[in-house]
């Protein structure tokens, strides 16, 4: 028993030291391999140490909310504007100063700068180039066409990007049409949803599926490994009366309870700088949020196509309504 007690003391000592060694604590919902190079560069430039606490954006936001004033987090990074706006609604963030926020376009950040967008992704279609039967698909709404039975790949409805996409379509086309669209897709997937976007791309590349709804960078990630894969990107809904491509942003916020807001703001200043933006977005073939910073060369140029005019904060404001709609249709 004695050894148990001393173990306890020793362990808590170890842990407290562990935490003190870092001066900025980042709750990160972004993949480790994408955020680590950015953090390393920041520490190199400023000498400020960073402790990464990784997880899924949604559960980290829960943690932040539950912890309240006891949270040790200084920054929250999410892959989804829905989560960021939700955090703002729950009053968990502290606005970033205007001078730092100004480098990011107004439409890619919260109205009061509670969170700042860092990189954008587009919801696009991936098609198998050998399958001529899916050539007619040029809009996400075509995915409900009965001709696609057994040929469509989508993720399960717990996926943040998927939910955000549905929010955009619901805002643009109304609940009724979106609900019909979901029901049509449900009939086309033959009871099978994918748990990862990358697997949809793989299924389309190998001919198991003919068309899928994914974030654009998954296509390039697959092509990097398999340059000859018979897949292509299709930017949907580009017609004159069409809604355009749905966008979503990954972003960052300073927590309300941060004891180190100055350094936290320095971190944001770094990731929104030209260098930081390039680092943050390019590792994942995303669009840098800052204007004038080029995306990876293979990606369709931002501004060269039509984007759905839905403001990013809406993705959080309308999330529960979207979840209700998805549940009512019974999407798996």
């Amino acid at each position: 028993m004695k050894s148990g007690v001393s173990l306890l003391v020793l362990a808590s000592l170890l842990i407290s030291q562990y935490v003190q060694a870092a001066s900025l604590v980042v709750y990160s919902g972004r993949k480790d391999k994408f955020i680590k190079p950015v953090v390393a560069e920041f520490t190199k430039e400023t000498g400020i140490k960073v402790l990464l606490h990784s997880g899924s954006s949604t559960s980290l936001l829960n943690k932040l909310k539950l912890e309240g004033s006891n949270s040790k987090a200084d920054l929250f990074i999410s892959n989804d504007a829905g989560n960021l706006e939700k955090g703002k609604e729950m009053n968990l963030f502290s606005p970033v100063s205007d001078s730092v926020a100004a480098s990011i376009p107004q439409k890619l950040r919260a109205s009061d700068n509670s969170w700042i967008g860092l990189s954008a992704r587009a919801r696009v279609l991936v098609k198998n180039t050998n399958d001529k039967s899916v050539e007619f698909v040029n809009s996400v709404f075509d995915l409900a066409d009965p001709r696609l039975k057994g040929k469509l790949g989508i993720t399960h409805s717990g996926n943040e990007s998927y939910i955000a996409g549905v929010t955009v379509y619901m805002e643009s086309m109304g609940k009724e049409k979106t609900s019909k669209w979901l029901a049509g897709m449900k009939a086309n997937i033959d009871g099978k949803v994918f748990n990862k976007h990358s697997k949809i791309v793989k299924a389309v590349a190998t001919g198991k599926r003919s068309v899928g709804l994914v974030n654009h960078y998954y296509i390039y990630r697959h092509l990097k490994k398999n340059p000859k894969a018979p897949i292509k990107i299709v930017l949907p809904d580009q017609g004159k009366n069409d809604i355009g491509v749905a966008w979503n942003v990954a972003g960052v916020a300073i927590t309300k309870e941060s004891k180190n807001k100055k350094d936290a703001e320095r971190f944001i200043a770094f990731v929104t700088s030209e260098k930081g933006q390039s680092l943050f977005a390019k590792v994942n073939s995303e669009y840098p949020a800052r204007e004038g910073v080029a995306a990876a060369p293979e990606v369709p140029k931002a501004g060269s196509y039509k984007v759905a005019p839905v403001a990013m904060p809406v993705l959080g404001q309308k999330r529960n309504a979207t979840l209700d709609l998805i549940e009512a249709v019974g999407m798996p």
Partner: protein
Amino acid sequence: MTSSLNTPAVTLEKIKTRAPSMRGFLALLVVLIAAIPLLFVLFSSGKLSLEQWTNLWSNRLPELLGNTLSLAVLVAIGSMFLGVSAAWWITRRDFAYRRLAIWLMVLPLTIPTYVFAHIYTIMLEQDGWLGQLWLFLFPGTSIPEIFNIFGVTLVLVLAGFSYVFLLVRDALSRSQQDVEEAARIHGATPWQVFWRVNLPMLRPAIAAGIALVVLHVLSDFGAVSMLRYQTFTLSIYLQMSSRFDYQAAAGLSLVLVTLSLTFMVLERFFRNRQRYYGSGQSKKITAQKATLFETIAIWLWLGLIATFAFLLPLAWMISWSWQAWQQDLIDTEFWGYVGNSFTVSALAATLTVIAALPVALYHARERSAVSQGFLYLSNVGFVLPGPVIALGILSFVIATMPAIYGGMTVLALAMMVRFLPLSIQAQESAIQQLTPSIEQAARSLGANWYENLRRVILPILKGGMATAWVLVFIDTLKELPATLLLRPTGFDTLPVRIWIEASEEMLELAAPAALMLVLGTMPVLWILMKSSKPN
């Protein structure tokens, strides 16, 4: 008021009988801590309006009940089939490498359900090991899908049948031969003996094994969330995480608790009615020498189970770990995760074993309704899903003692709540050997309470405590959902890393972590097997 003033004698006597009950007080303390998540669930679901309840009731419950119950039934049947058949052959036939066979049937316990789910998902892909094999054997067909009830059943059976195996093997090796001989003399075929004599006598062990398996199914988080199968636990998790709706999550938890409790009471009821008492003189079963044909048949069957439940996953882990090793991905950070995992598991195991002691001792002494009630309450960890336990503990700690929040203490506390029932069960039988007379003898010889504890009680309980420690250690090492929420900032354990790497599809990084879990559990499993060797 007046009555207590008028009867000082009674009060004194009451105090007297309660005075030695330091352990009663300690037991109460432990049980109160264990009940925190349950109180949280009751409190939060109490805030649900009638309308919210009806909403939950009509929208979510029918589907969830159907999904959860059908999964539980399928997993119970599957585990029973694998566990009983393996235990039967291993206790009744003496064949080559029998010890190895026993090990192979227990080793799957070292692999957590989410690792099983992850590995089988990958292996069943078109370019995975099993996917390729399938396409080679059945060209032109499509590879079976794992994202459905059968896939989840497969994973949970492979991960859980060992519990049935262990309990049934124990019962079989203690069962007696005369009843079987009597049946044979009366002309029963071996098959009839199995169905009409052995099986009924094994019912308590099978029931206990299945109870364990079903409780694991009800509270499983890892496999169902990886395979997206909507059970109560997954739905509760989604409710609280994607909608920040802790009240609805609590409401669903309450239904789940009721379900689990009903199940536990039923199981206890049937077990009590089915007790078989053998006479002291009857002959113990001895294993028959297996014929060559039998040996081959047995090894084909056990080999098939072992391949899917352990060897194949192990081979997969080793192969990808080798890749990671070659790419120099196993760095100091990785060993940090290993260190974290083992530290928190050792801490939690120690804490849980100590905490279980007063509850078990108190019940062994008192045998009262109160002590029984304590025992029931300490089962909270078994009936509530991990995410809810974590949520309850977190809310409580932040509301009452925020100073300890963020350290490992809170995590260890949650593990204690989760695994307290395991620890109590493992210690209960040892405690029953500790009759009051032994203690009284020690006291009358002048031992004070400390000496009594150190020189009498602890030596008798040592075996049970060791088993409990090992069981809690293994389960904490594998624990995922509560660790995800409650770990100190930046404190990653092996399960957390497996979770993160698996969701990022970094196979090279998930595999070594899973392999370390298996390797780390083996020595403690060995201790457990040593101490529970039948005969």
